[in-house]
């Protein structure tokens, strides 16, 4: 095996931590790597607890787990600026936590409590945090693709150096709104990174049933948009791809398409008997679990020790237990405030009452 004497890449173990850090790809520092590991672990523990709470009927509505795909959100968001805009689909816990949203507020949101990040009005699929430029989970497949293009248009128009990261699934690429969003983004050279999480399924539909091409990045060619594919089970691979994409966008060269090859270990939502895939396939993908894989990397490169990693896991577990306690103890929203946050200019309650009365007793038809 050839060895580069300068970086000692495949030779003997590097000796000092500093020497190792210099070899990290994509200009990453050891601290950034530890941070990414921490984020992935947080997401994993958060979701394990969310699933448990769901089984206890503490979480209403739908719950879509991101378990197995953590490297995508974490790698991508770490590669962006802190104030770059983020949008994603309903499988959104990972984006929120990777962006640093408050863990307790996220958990309370799942529980539908007033202390939730959207005051309990959004639930699992609609986490959002405007001050962190996280513009939400979106439940309608593909709906946030043109919204992301629109935000990028705003950035271009306002001459702000920010880019938009827009996450969606393989299934979303079959939707017409995907086409309209990418067409406009390409045409107007908008600074948006389209990040397609290709996890091989759209609910119970296999890739072959939903898409004529198995590589989603091919779809970018229909818009002459540059595209890369990355290993969505490897946080470094995702980081590198999105770093390149974001740089491209920020330098005014237009949109970029990133396909992350990934896999969800759990069902589509909590109500999924998973009849469409066999256990052996899941088992093989679980071997690529991004968290232990990156943990091994950190240990091998002497960025963290096994003990340090174990401690990260313990702390995350304690943090999530505390988040669940917090959510459980939090008050429910006051039903009389149900319309809060629906309208930019709230409706006058008296006028609303009048309209309701009219609807119940329509005026006699003109004759």
């Amino acid at each position, binding site marked *: 095996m050839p060895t580069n004497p300068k970086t000692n890449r495949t030779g003997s173990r590097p000796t000092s931590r500093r020497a190792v850090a210099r070899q990290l790809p994509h200009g990453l520092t050891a601290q950034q790597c530890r941070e990414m590991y921490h984020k992935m672990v947080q997401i994993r523990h958060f979701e394990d607890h969310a699933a448990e709470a769901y089984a206890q009927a503490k979480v209403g509505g739908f719950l879509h787990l991101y378990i197995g795909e953590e490297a995508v959100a974490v790698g991508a968001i770490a590669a962006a600026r802190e104030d770059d805009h983020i949008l994603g689909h309903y499988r959104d816990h990972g984006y929120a936590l990777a962006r640093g949203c408050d863990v307790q507020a996220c958990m309370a949101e799942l529980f539908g409590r007033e202390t939730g990040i959207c005051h309990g009005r959004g639930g699992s699929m609609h986490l959002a945090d405007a001050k962190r430029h996280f513009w939400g989970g979106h439940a309608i497949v593909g709906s946030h693709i043109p919204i992301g293009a629109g935000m990028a248009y705003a950035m271009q128009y306002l001459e702000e150096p920010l880019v938009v990261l827009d996450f969606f699934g393989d299934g979303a690429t079959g939707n*017409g709104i995907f*086409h309209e969003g990418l067409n406009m983004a390409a045409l107007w050279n908008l600074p948006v990174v389209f990040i397609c999480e290709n996890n091989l399924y759209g609910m119970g539909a296999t890739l072959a049933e939903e898409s004529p091409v198995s590589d989603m990045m*091919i779809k970018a060619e229909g818009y*002459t948009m540059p595209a890369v594919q990355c290993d969505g089970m490897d946080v470094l691979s995702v980081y590198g791809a999105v770093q390149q994409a974001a740089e491209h966008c920020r330098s005014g060269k237009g949109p970029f398409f990133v396909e992350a090859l990934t896999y969800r270990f759990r069902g589509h939502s909590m109500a999924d008997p998973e009849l469409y895939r066999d256990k052996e396939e899941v088992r093989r993908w679980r071997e690529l679990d991004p968290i232990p894989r990156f943990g091994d990397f950190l240990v091998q490169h002497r960025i963290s020790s096994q003990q340090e990693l174990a401690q990260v896991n313990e702390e995350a577990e304690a943090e999530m237990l505390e988040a669940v306690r917090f959510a459980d103890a939090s008050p429910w929203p006051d039903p009389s405030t149900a319309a809060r946050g629906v309208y930019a200019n709230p409706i006058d309650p008296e006028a609303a009452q009048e309209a309701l009365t009219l609807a119940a007793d*329509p005026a006699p038809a003109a*004759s």
Partner: protein
Amino acid sequence: MSEIELVSGPDAPGGELMAGVASVLGAPAAERRRSLRQLPQGLALRLYTAMARLRAFDERAVILQRQGTIGTYPPYYGEEAVQAASVLALDDRDWLFPTYRQNAVATLRGCPPESPLLLWRGNPAGWYDVHRYRTAPICVPVATNYPHAVGAAWGSRLRGESTVALAFGGDGSTSPGDFHEACNLAAVVVAPVIFLVTNNQWAISTPVQQQTKVTRLADKATAYGIPGVRVDSFDVFACYEAVAAAAARGRAGLGPTLIEAVGYRLGPHGTADEPSLYRDPERARLWAGMEPLGRAGAAMVDAGLTTLEALEEIRESAVAEMLLAGDQLEAVPVPELEEIADRVHLSTPWTLSPDHLREPSYPRAG
């Protein structure tokens, strides 16, 4: 947004846009003559006749619109080759899904020309028998006919039939999501469908450069893993070959094809449009020489397939046919109000019942 170069440039005839498009008439003279002489007996004249009839219909319709006999009308002057070639390259059992721009294609399958004319007159007598002519009603909402065609083609495949479906569209029609969903689904289910996109470079006043970043619309096929072919839209023989090949692919179980017929919209978008407000008339004049009827006729005479006199006779009889059709329109009775929603619903909802239309009454709550 990009500046559109006006008089000459890459998207003028012979420019970069047309480079590499399939063309029979654009070949060197000897090759062109050879190709025409090798066509099946009588095909060239049948194509010419079909184009001449479409042309005569279109010109008559514009006159009728100016006279107030019909309402708004979308002329297709210059697109006759694409339309005639499509109908003739397909089997009469194959399905056509036209837009407003191909409003008269059913007349090439025996539908009386009065039908589409009455449609523009707002008379329900203009409804032709969709099943008889295997031609769907025209779609005005852009791109909505693509998914319809996929449905018909997929159905044909599921039933084990050998029919294909062809949907017409324009450059502008490739932007709405329906186009994408149709291509995606057709490719997934291997539907025998042909997407025939006529790139006339304009969607009303929007030039194609402001429509999409892709310069060759056929390249959009890559995203669906299907073939995308480019053909000269003013060349009836090349269009015929392209559609015939796509139909053969469909029948062989190989799925959809995207055809981009490249050209220029020689006329206005519609009878209420004034193109000189948004494009240089000089530019249309550059393309005028590509006009498909005269171009095909000249090549046929040159190849010794026919004479100028014979072609003139074909055109004259087409003009006479359309004149006669136009004269019939005013004698057709004005429809009753109750007929307004006929053929819209399978069973008429109460809001459109004759009683309600005459004297509207709304059910009261409770």
